[in-house]
């Protein structure tokens, strides 16, 4: 606070005029007590088919808890991890367990009736509401001080190339699913394409000028006028490119070229997406991101772990099949390693223009469409958070005993200062956001 000599100067720094000062001083979110201008970010990571609960949830409650096999990769971040057991997805209605699992996970509201028949239950269509990441994105984009180039980025890895209820988690609104980008090169193009085009242009402009000069010399006076004009345009463009690249110094990840989008490349593709995500945040292209690993009912074959069957197939095996259980634990542990990799990369990167590391300003939330694969339950849906920045008390294991997950979604919004009084189906929002 010492940087600001007066309250007025502080407000000016915030971009607020003196006229609104009295109002601001009465509001809770912007009073002096609140942390000023602290960047906040959210990443939601999805992995499919439920978990094996016995090797997932800690037995203990509170600060003193032990990480079990699946969550062990989070050991380095244990005091910045929050494990929330006892949160249930209560949304019912059309669609099978997996469809509702992914379609209601971030929306907290029913699917529309439709024509997609699941393995049981009635057929369904898309979600009837937007997802919490988009809600928060819209909130941040509406405020000039938190607005970013994209607002949110939707990553994926090995998401099947067809749009249906099982492959879409993010919704911009009712009936408006947002497709995740699961090709790192496509994401790179989205983030840096314009910049690269400018760079590429800059690298060829000398040649262009040279050739224009050669051609000009062979012209008669009348025709030369037109080429002179063209030469001027190119020169102006050159100056503009120079100005632009001086103004925007972006860091970009270096991607290994030509990695094909196929099952066995999943670890590489995942690591590339994580790099892109970290750099996207570093450049402040967005403050919200989702990362959807495959899809609900996802069938990755983790051959790199020595597992040749698809994940969903294995997840249906009874608990008595110890071989299958062992594989499920390995599979889920691999997902956890990806969460840990993201946390580590964020934690290795100093917060640009701020204090601490990027992880200190980012909440990573890992979740799933089911609580457990072979029962298709939505009770005890996994919610594991790593990081900081939303005002939650980290380094704890909680057992809440069965609260609707809408309240957890609300807590995320409230963490950003977006004080919504309900989200999704209102029936599940009683008692307000979870106090974490």
């Amino acid at each position, binding site marked *: 606070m010492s940087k600001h000599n007066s309250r007025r100067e502080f407000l000016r720094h915030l971009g607020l005029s003196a006229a609104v000062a009295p109002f601001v001083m009465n509001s809770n979110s912007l009073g002096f007590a609140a942390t000023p201008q602290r960047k906040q970010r959210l990443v939601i990571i999805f992995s499919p088919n439920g978990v094996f609960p016995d090797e997932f949830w800690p037995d203990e409650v509170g600060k003193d808890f032990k990480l079990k096999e699946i969550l062990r990769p989070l050991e380095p971040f244990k005091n910045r991890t929050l494990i929330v057991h006892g949160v249930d997805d209560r949304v019912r209605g059309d669609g099978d367990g997996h469809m509702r699992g992914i379609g209601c996970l971030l929306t907290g509201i029913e*699917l*529309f*009736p*439709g*024509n*997609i*028949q*699941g*393995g*049981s*239950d*009635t*057929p*369904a*269509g*898309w979600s*009837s509401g937007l997802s919490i990441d988009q809600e928060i994105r819209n909130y941040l984009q509406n405020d000039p001080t938190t607005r970013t180039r994209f607002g949110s980025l939707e990553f994926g890895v090995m998401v099947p190339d*067809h*749009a*249906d*209820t099982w492959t879409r988690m993010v919704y911009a609104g*009712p*009936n408006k699913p947002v497709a995740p980008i699961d090709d790192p090169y496509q994401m790179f*193009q989205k983030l840096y*394409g314009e910049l*690269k*085009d400018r760079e*590429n*242009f800059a*690298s*060829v402009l000398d*040649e*262009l000028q*040279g*050739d*224009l000069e050669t*051609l000009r010399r*062979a*012209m*008669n006076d*009348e*025709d030369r006028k*037109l*080429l002179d*004009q*063209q030469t001027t*345009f*190119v020169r*102006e*463009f050159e100056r503009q490119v120079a100005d632009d690249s001086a103004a925007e110094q972006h860091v970009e990840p270096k991607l290994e*070229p*030509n990695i*094909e989008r196929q099952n066995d490349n999943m670890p590489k593709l995942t690591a590339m997406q994580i790099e892109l995500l970290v750099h996207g945040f570093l450049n402040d292209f967005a403050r919200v991101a989702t990362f959807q690993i495959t899809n609900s009912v996802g069938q990755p074959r983790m051959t790199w772990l020595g597992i040749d069957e698809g994940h969903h197939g294995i997840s249906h095996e009874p608990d008595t099949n110890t071989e299958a259980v062992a594989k499920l634990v390995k599979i889920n542990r691999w997902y956890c390693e990806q969460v840990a990799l993201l946390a580590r990369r964020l934690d290795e990167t100093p917060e640009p223009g701020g204090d601490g590391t990027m992880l200190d300003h980012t909440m990573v939330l890992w979740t799933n469409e089911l609580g457990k694969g072979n029962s298709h339950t939505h009770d005890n849906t996994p919610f594991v958070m790593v990081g900081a920045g939303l005002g939650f008390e980290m380094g704890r294991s909680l057992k809440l005993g069965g609260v609707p997950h809408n309240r957890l979604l609300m807590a995320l919004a409230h963490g950003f200062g977006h004080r919504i009084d309900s989200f999704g189906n209102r029936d599940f929002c009683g008692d307000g956001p979870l106090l974490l």
Partner: protein
Amino acid sequence: MTWSRCFSYGLLVAVVSLATADVSARDGQTVFAESCATCHGEAGGGTDAFPQPLAGDLSVSQLAALVQETMPEDDPGSLSNDEARAVVEFAFHGFYSPVAKARSQPPRIELSRLTVRQHRQSLADLVASFVGTPNIGDERGMKGEYFPSRHFKDRVFERVDANIDFDIGSESPVAQMKDADQFSIRWQGSLLVSETGWHEFVVRTSQATRLFVNDNEHAIVDAWVKSGDEHEHVGRAYLLAGRTYPIRLEFSRNNQGVSDEKVHSQHEQLEKASINLLWKPPRGKLETIPSRAIAPDWSPEVFVCTTPFPPDDRSYGWERGTSISPAWDEATTTAAIEAAEYVATHIDELAKTTLSDEQRPAKIKDFCAAFVESAFRTPLDEAIREQYVDRHFAAAEQESVALRRVVLLALKSPRFLFREIDASGGDRNTAARLAYIVSDSFPPDWLSRQADEGKLTDESNRRLAAQRMLESRVARQKQREFLRTWLQIDGVVEMQKDVEQFPGFDETMVSDLRTSLELFLDELLSSETADYRELFLAQEIYANDRIVNYYGGETSDPRFLKYRLDDGRRAGMLTHPYMMAMFAHHDSTSPIHRGVFLARSVLGQTLKPPPDAVAPFAADLHPELTTRERVAMQTRPAACMTCHHVINPLGFALERFDAVGRYRTVERERPINDRGRYQPRNGDAVEFSGARELADYLAASSQVSEAFVEQMFHFMVQQSIAAYGVETKPKLHQAFISSGYNIRQLAIEIAVAASPIGREHDAESLANQP
């Protein structure tokens, strides 16, 4: 059309010259100095008060009649016949006529950039030259494949469906499929497009559907998931006229999702099924895609550049690329980026390679060289290849980066953007000119080969080449675009009519009439004789039931067929309802609009813009006057008559066709007077009554066919015809007449004549040509 809103007025003022005998034999120069120079300047160059130079294309007789009627402004009619004639002769040969003007400042072939149309077509062809070419037959409709399963397995039936508008209900659509509850259909083919711009597509169905247009992987409509009550799905695609595009529509009856039929049978609730595929092309209305716009044959994807460009200069009446602007330069940059992105994402297909191909880097480099060569319309010498291709592959770590740089540089290079920029290009330049003249795109490989073999210096070889090129769809489209320009229907056409006077003349009718007109042009251009006189003389038009019934006939056939309306009183395009309605006000005809069209487009006369924008007198304020009388009254002042003495009597001849183009014999209970007259450039004034007589005159008029030749030359070549030597126009005109006024033949002759001549040929060398 500010022009049309201006009226000038009047009845012809009877000029009776009383002064004849005493003022004898003043010569033209003296008369000009004494009576004209004060306002018009010594050599007709204008003065501060009247800055517009005296220049135009009236003949000596036309100009003499005009001068006598209207000049000098302070005392019209004071010149004797001889004096008027003398002063006009002096002015005409001194500075007024195009020839005199050309003499003082000979037109030349100017350096030009690609026009917007040429730019888009060239980009499309650059990519297209690396994939297959479509082969569209005569059959129309979409190929339908029918499957007794949800997912296009085990095809049992195939046929061509004229268009996609099926009310399937609860039955199986074809006998071969027994199960009415579960089946899928895939329709495929090519879209035949005749407008450039965003085309909107709509699929209406309660079932699962996907629509792919010009992109076989990404659906523009993906409604495989049915959700809530949405039964209408919209997508859009930017398409270029004169090309064909792959289109695929997928349809699946019943629920989707898992393959377990037991689960399905527990939950299925069958609604009645239907499917309808519609589109709304630019300028069109939303309609079921008509079968004439789809063929069952295959087409490859086309790269279509969607970057908006500033419009080309049309100040001479035709699009040309002789000026550039920052907005244009910026658009070329954006277009280059768009093209580089497309090429980069499709590189494996274009360079015929795969990620695992060891030859991939080499193939991409070869692709780049071929791409640059096509873009520049010239073989790459070593220096150019090094500069535009090799250097970038040596410098960049990855071939993907080099590829983008090569494409960006090539498409920003003056060698791509400007026409025949290297004047030493020889026969390759001839090939490029020939291709751009005929089809607005760069030469195909076979034409470049002919150039390299030295064949194109020979006139008969150029004729054969032009003939072959003209067979392409893109070239045919250019012909169609020319006729649209000639008819002035190439821009945005607004046709709102008074609902009380013309009930039923709605958006659908306008769209039907446009279709009718386009069908006429298509038929004319593809017919054996391609006789331009049919534009004036045809008695039949294409019409569907709506048109026929509205225009006094009777039919219930919804197809567009040929009808002879109004007992043969109609005259080709002159009286086509679309034209009549376009050149009319919302509540009354406009002899002025019609007259201006006839004078400018058809007779090829230059009309100066009216001195003031004038709103036409409202019909209601003069209930006692016919339209003809009202127009005559308003354009009576001398300032108006300089042009309206030409315009009005032409437009009056079409008065029997009302503001929506219906035939009529009375207006306000008074008989129609459709007598008109015209003073041609050569010969005596002609008089005619009604559209047929006017049409007969125009079809036989040498002035009209000459104007047509000149306009077509300008549209195709985009340079002034005068820059090609004084003999070019009369030669082309003669060839046109000899061919029986064959429009296609004229296009070929224009290409034959203009393609060997470039900027390097100055007027002097042309004059000395044998």
